[in-house]
């Protein structure tokens, strides 16, 4: 399974490296979202600073939708799904590999967005261990659930519009938990960030476990 996951992730990242969709399209989109939020709330910079955690994770959510769509568009072209079914690859390995490739792209986007939030919103970043752990757990959850729902919608003609409708409600716990943890790390809200981080980690673990079990069936039916 891990050999297949490495093969799959390597292939997806190589495609991304060559096509540069993340760097030339999704990253600029992410910065635009941050910038537009900034323009909309500019009259009161205090609101921007207070809302920066939530705005950051909303932007990450939008970017993850694009990254997930992209990950499954490359498989939809020219009989890719049939070829994958015939390849002999372990479906669990395919799931892990695709999720890992999406996660790598999301981490890169989160770095870009974090820099954007600091510069545009004037956010002060503190509590690095908690922030980094949150980013990792939330990214794992986003990538795992995105891969799961991505393959579910992959075979449908309306996948571009259906995926956000299916996925955004599922990702609501990630948005809420990650925003709370960031709020705690920035000393803006009085919550136990580590408890919310535990919830994020549990979400990621459940989605990953479910993906490992169900991906084969979903791949067959997509």
């Amino acid at each position, binding site marked *: 399974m891990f050999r297949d996951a490495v093969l799959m992730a390597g292939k997806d990242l*190589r495609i991304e490296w*060559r*096509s540069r969709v993340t760097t030339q399209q999704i990253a600029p989109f992410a910065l635009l979202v941050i910038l537009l939020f900034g323009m909309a709330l500019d009259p009161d910079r205090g609101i921007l600073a207070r809302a920066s955690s939530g705005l950051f994770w909303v932007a990450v959510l939008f970017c993850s939708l694009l990254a997930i769509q992209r990950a499954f568009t490359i498989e939809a072209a*020219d009989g*890719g799904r*049939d070829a*994958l079914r015939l390849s002999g690859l372990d479906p669990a390995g395919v799931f892990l590999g695709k999720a890992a490739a999406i996660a790598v792209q999301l981490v890169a986007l989160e770095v870009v967005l974090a820099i954007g939030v600091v510069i545009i919103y004037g956010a002060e970043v503190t509590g690095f261990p908690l922030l980094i752990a949150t980013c990792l757990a939330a990214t794992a959850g986003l990538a795992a659930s995105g891969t799961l729902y991505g393959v579910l919608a992959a075979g449908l003609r309306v996948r571009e519009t259906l995926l956000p409708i299916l996925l955004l409600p599922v990702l609501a716990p990630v948005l809420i938990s990650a925003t709370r943890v960031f709020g705690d790390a920035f000393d803006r809200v009085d919550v136990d960030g580590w408890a919310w981080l535990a919830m994020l980690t549990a979400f990621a673990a459940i989605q990953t476990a479910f993906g490992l079990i169900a991906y084969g069936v979903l791949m067959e039916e997509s």
Partner: protein
Amino acid sequence: MTVLGRFPALAGIDLEVAAGEIVLLRGPNGAGKTTLLRLCAGLLPITRGEATVLGHDLTDRRQWRALRRRVGLLGHATGLYDELTVADNVRFWGQAAGAPEADIDAALVACGLHERLAGLLVARLSAGQRRRTSLACLLSRRPELWLLDEPHAGLDQDGRDVLDDLVRRAVASGATVLLSSHELERAEALADRVVTIVAGTTDPAVSVVPAPAEEPLLVP
């Protein structure tokens, strides 16, 4: 019987293919040739009847995965990634099937893709070059059963000769081939037996030259 949508795509297929045989499926468009090849690859379910391919019962979905590792399908779609090079594509699909590097390199050479073409992005290839790349992917897997759907389509004269040569060599090394083609003259010269499919049914009146069946591969 296999049903696609509301209509039976195959009904009344009676076909037995011996190991090492090359069988040509011929018939008009929509007769069910592609459906039969996809069914043999373990990509479509059988709704009624029986079929065994390489000893795997196709009515049992749990056996599909094991079967798929042993077959190679060259279909209308190539399954190639446009953003990867020819060599990257062949390497990925070969490694996915557990092929050693030597087999992957040999497949590139055998399909005439080893020099300048190996480093080209698939998006820049012609239809014939894509077909060759797809063939190299199949070859690197060394399948026991080759399922070729219109394999000559899009290939130039040299490509067709390469394909026919590879098919003959694969059979000489123990593989079995089931192919469909509208290029009957060339395909019939390649095949040991021709089976006609009309409206999802094998037509015994025009299915010819039965081969000795030492090891039945397909018994629907």
